[in-house]
């Protein structure tokens, strides 16, 4: 079947099998390998992307379900060469560590800040509770999201 998905503002049309998962569509068809494919069971959250305005686990969504919709991946966070504050926060506060869970953490973090610009550490932990950091560096991740809450894009 043919699907048309608007990813990070660019429209892509591809012929795919209906069983193709969104994560594999992004990584293998579009070569957007920033989204990571982790547990494959919708537990770990490494594959989180936005489908329209909502973070979803893209290993549990078919590419066909994204047909006609917008997708935001980690590659789409940067604007005009300027990192999103959530990206800069992860860099400043050593939130990446091994980096595997980072794209999903940042997309959920961005969504949280859009809805709650000044979240408490508890609110950050709740928002990220469907995502796993196997470095177990949650403290740094919470600090990274807080950094993003406190700084504008382009902070030197």
């Amino acid at each position, binding site marked *: *079947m043919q699907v048309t998905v608007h990813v990070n503002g660019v429209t892509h049309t591809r012929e795919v*099998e*209906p*069983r*193709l*998962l969104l994560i*594999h569509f992004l990584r293998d068809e579009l070569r957007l390998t920033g989204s990571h494919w982790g547990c*494959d*069971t*919708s*537990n770990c*959250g490494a594959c*989180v992307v936005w*489908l329209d305005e*909502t*973070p*979803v*686990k893209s290993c*549990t*969504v*078919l590419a*066909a*379900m994204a*047909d006609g919709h917008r997708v935001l991946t980690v590659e789409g966070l940067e604007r005009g060469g300027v990192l999103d504050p959530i990206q800069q926060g992860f860099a400043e506060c050593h939130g990446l560590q091994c980096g595997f869970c980072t794209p999903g953490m940042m997309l*959920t973090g961005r969504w949280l800040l859009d809805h709650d610009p000044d979240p408490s550490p508890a609110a950050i932990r*709740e*928002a990220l*509770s*469907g*995502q796993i950091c196997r470095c177990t560096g949650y403290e740094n991740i919470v600090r990274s999201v807080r950094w993003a809450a406190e700084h504008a894009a382009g902070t030197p």
Partner: protein
Amino acid sequence: MQVPAYVEYEKATSVEHALGLLARFGPEARVLAGGHSLIPMMKLRLVQPETLIDINGLTALCYISVTDGELRIGALTRHAQLLDSAVAGQHFAILHDAEKVIADPIVRNWGTVGGSLCQADPSEDLSAAFAALKASMLIQGPGGSRTVPARQFHTGPYETVVAPGELLTEIRIAIRPGVGSAYEKVGRRVGDWPVGAAGAAIWLAGETIADAGIGLTAVGARHFAAAEAEEFLRGAPATEASFARAGEIAAEHCRPSSDQRGPADYKRHLASELTTRALRRAARRARGTGA
């Protein structure tokens, strides 16, 4: 790499269109809502439908409203929408209690209320919440619609009365005065299925229990309910002793199985204790003396 087996795919554009597609593709078709149970099961080949009928475009089934003295929840309402719904929480706090502990925030963004009910997992939380609230389900089929009480909706693990060719479209809960409700769950970790969970709804007339509903999940309760304990509570005083005895009765009548989440005797203990706690909190809410 886990990938579903080959499957055909159709996108429904309306309830009528979905029903037409279900009729055309027959019993080997499956309705795809949030997909957060169906797609993992397809990856594991636990289910292998020939055709998926994607109803995610049926935004007309995403709503929470109060109509004709009932809270009405569209079947495609996402868990996150139910958790965010002030009107749902105001009438039935049990729905917010339960939604807070269903899966995780990202799964709740996409998983649907109707999908969870139709999946009919014997450990599913909303099945117990709707059993406690004595809800009813509106099912549409080629010949029109029918309403089924929540307690007749499930026919067994992973089985419901929704026939091939039919679609669950709405959940209805009658709004009656004097109600308080609550949900108590014990899980191994955030986002997991319950080891055991209990929901309670209490309708008070003064300090007498005019009516009570108790829902249980993951402990082998018939129809996700504790009918004998409810019978005991009807007309009883809303006291700690009544709630404790109701918990014991609920535990006596459930049939938990030992599995990786815990031994049967522990789950039976949970059925008793969580029923008592849910009743206690529901009563406080009915009196307006506590959250």
